[in-house]
């Protein structure tokens, strides 16, 4: 048995390394979560704006149904429409012809660069993600801004 050994009275040092490990892990988890959880919004008005009252107005409307899209617009006083059917039964957003819609909206925008209004009109009981995807496409495609002033048509079902 050792005798005469002095017991240190200095306070023990706090070992911070495990704490740092834990905090580092927490930071990484939160960073991942923030990256995937970022939110944005799509502005819209709940009723249709007064587009189409004059023959000069574009009066662009996109009907979203259970068979695909119907795009209607006014081209120099002449009413035009184009049907974009789903390639397979319209059950999910991927089934809708979004590329065709983006292409058509892009060409309409090229012909009417000053127009910014459009109406989205769900005409059947589609899921909300289909409507949100359609509004997103109408607002912009890639870097090209299309029709950012979107009205969502209510009271037009069936």
């Amino acid at each position: 048995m050792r005798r005469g050994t002095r017991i240190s009275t200095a306070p023990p040092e706090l070992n911070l390394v495990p704490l740092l490990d834990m905090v580092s892990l927490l930071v990484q988890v939160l960073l991942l979560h923030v990256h995937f959880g970022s939110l944005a919004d799509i502005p819209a008005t709940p009723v249709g704006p007064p587009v189409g009252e004059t023959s000069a107005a574009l009066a662009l409307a996109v009907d979203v149904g259970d068979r695909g899209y119907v795009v209607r617009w006014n081209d120099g006083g002449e009413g035009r429409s184009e049907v974009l059917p789903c390639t397979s039964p319209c059950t999910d957003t991927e089934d809708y012809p979004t590329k065709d819609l983006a292409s058509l909206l892009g060409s309409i925008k090229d012909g009417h660069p000053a127009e910014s209004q459009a109406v989205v009109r769900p005409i059947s009981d589609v899921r909300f993600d289909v409507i949100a995807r359609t509004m997103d496409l109408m607002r912009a495609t890639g870097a090209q801004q299309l029709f950012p002033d979107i009205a969502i048509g209510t009271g037009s079902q069936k």
Partner: protein
Amino acid sequence: MRSWRKGGRRVEPQSDLMLAAMVDMMVNVLLFLLTLYGAAGVEGDLQLPEGTSKTDPASEVELTIYQDSVDVDGSPVLGVQSSGGWASLSEDGLTRGLDALEATLRERHDRASTETPRLAVQIDRRVPWSVVEPLIRTAGDAGFVDLRFVVTSVAEH
């Protein structure tokens, strides 16, 4: 810090790693991220649709439409019978529910500091339009003309 002798010379050890400053920094980063997480997070059973918009959500009032209930600023306003879902809600019950929703929204609208308050609308992606439509129309009737549909931001579809 302890020193020792080597070959008759007093040797001072290298200074210890200063962890206190690093801990301070980590705590700051952690608080920052927790704040961001709190601002961006949504409730677990709400699946928002995806969108390429980069506009930060900003609103005075929040309307949240879950699969089985409707909240205004986090307080439940309209619920449905759990067994049957939305379809089983009687016409009378729906009318009363929408009246309550309109009253709540109108009260929030009048209390807002801006003339045209923005209404953030968080809608579960699986909810059908037949449910969303009367709720959106009610929001319009309550005076909200600036709706902000909240989406999960993605780079590209």
